[in-house]
């Protein structure tokens, strides 16, 4: 399997694709591949925001811009799995026409497979494999998220929060959560009424912290503000104060992975359903083991 990594690093797309599947399905691990832990070099950028704010369309614009500068870019685009059937409809490629033609671009769609925090547990390693294979940037697009999904900081070196107009009044900008961890914020759909207002609400709310991330306006539809956004992402410093949160989310991700990959998980769930023991007690017992 080291062969796959070697072929992928040499530019073999099919080998890369098979390698990512092997990592996603747990056939390959960090140890088996010899991938070093991510040093936070800024190559992995998380893109998060509410459903429908235009994350995929912005990613498509960014792909075109970076590719024109002769950079190689990979995208991991996550969409939700059904909690009922485990199935998923992965539709991010519909918005990313660049994904189908451009030789500098590689896009892989992922389902959450019902992992906590909306991020597949092996997403981080998949992103690091792409960096190891020589991609200059790896964009990780999260599922459409709300205010408190911050798990992306466990994977990404930098986080871009996408906002849009008409998403509530200025109090929304004052709320705690992902706003505090974003390294940059872009208000998409700047062609629509209210976008300027949202940007200014965000700026004034974040200014008070004395640790304000840049807030940009852009329109993926009209290709406005994309160059500035692309330049910013290449030189964006990590926001101070986010470090502990990052480690907290990494720990939680590792913890969740260990739990979900237990061989006896189905039996444990059946036991809980049958009332043989309760969840708190079961966890306490495992901690003591």
């Amino acid at each position, binding site marked *: 399997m080291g062969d796959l990594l070697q072929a992928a690093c040499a530019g073999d797309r099919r080998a890369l*694709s098979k390698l990512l599947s092997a990592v996603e399905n747990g056939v390959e691990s960090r140890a088996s591949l010899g991938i070093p832990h991510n040093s936070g070099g800024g190559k992995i950028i998380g893109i998060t925001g509410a459903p429908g704010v235009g994350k995929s369309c912005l990613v498509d614009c960014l792909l075109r811009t970076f590719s024109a500068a002769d950079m190689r870019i990979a995208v991991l685009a996550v969409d939700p799995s059904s909690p009922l059937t485990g*199935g*998923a409809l992965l539709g991010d*490629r519909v918005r990313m026409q660049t994904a*189908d*033609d451009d030789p500098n671009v590689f896009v892989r769609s992922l389902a959450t497979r019902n992992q906590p925090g909306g991020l597949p547990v092996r997403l981080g390693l998949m992103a690091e494999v792409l960096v190891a294979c020589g991609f200059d940037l790896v964009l990780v697009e999260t599922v459409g998220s709300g205010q408190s999904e911050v798990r992306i900081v466990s994977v990404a070196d930098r986080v871009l929060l996408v906002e849009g107009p008409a998403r509530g009044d200025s109090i929304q900008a004052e709320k705690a959560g992902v706003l505090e961890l974003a390294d940059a914020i872009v208000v998409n759909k700047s062609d629509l009424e209210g976008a300027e207002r949202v940007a200014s609400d965000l700026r004034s709310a974040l200014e008070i912290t004395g640790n304000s991330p840049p807030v940009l306006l852009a329109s993926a539809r009209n290709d406005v503000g994309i160059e500035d956004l692309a330049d910013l992402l290449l030189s964006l410093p990590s926001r101070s104060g986010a470090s502990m949160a990052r480690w907290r989310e990494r720990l939680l991700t590792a913890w969740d992975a260990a739990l979900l990959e237990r061989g006896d998980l189905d039996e444990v769930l059946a036991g809980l359903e049958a009332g043989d023991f309760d969840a708190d007690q079961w966890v306490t017992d495992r901690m003591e083991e």
Partner: protein
Amino acid sequence: MRIVIAKPGLDGHDRGAKVVARALRDAGHEVIYTGLRRTPEQIVRTVLDEDADLLGISSLSGAHAFLFPRICELLREAGADEVVVFGGGIIPVDDREQLYGSGMRAIFGPGTTMAEMGDFCTAVEARRTAGEPSGVGEGGDWKWSGE
């Protein structure tokens, strides 16, 4: 399984493709939808990059006799022999033998139930597990006949 649902050619009718994508999602599969008006080359690249097990192609424009075999041929050229290809849309019965001959394993027309789509995928999964030929470049004469 991972399934790409694609719309090749200049055909704007995507309700069928979306319904199929939804049905396969509900049958527990991970479905990647390409959107409208993709070329055979773009569709093959999507299948390869997404490491899909199956490819479903939909056409209602009458261009299936060119587009479907072309996609099958490109998949084989790329070495993706194991990918299982099925089609749907408005495909006249007289045209179907040629499409099976090009490597396709099922053609679904109007009136197909969501349950049958799911059954087809289950049958493919069983054949793959058993090592029986079902991919576009694996030969054999198996095709879906509603078993």
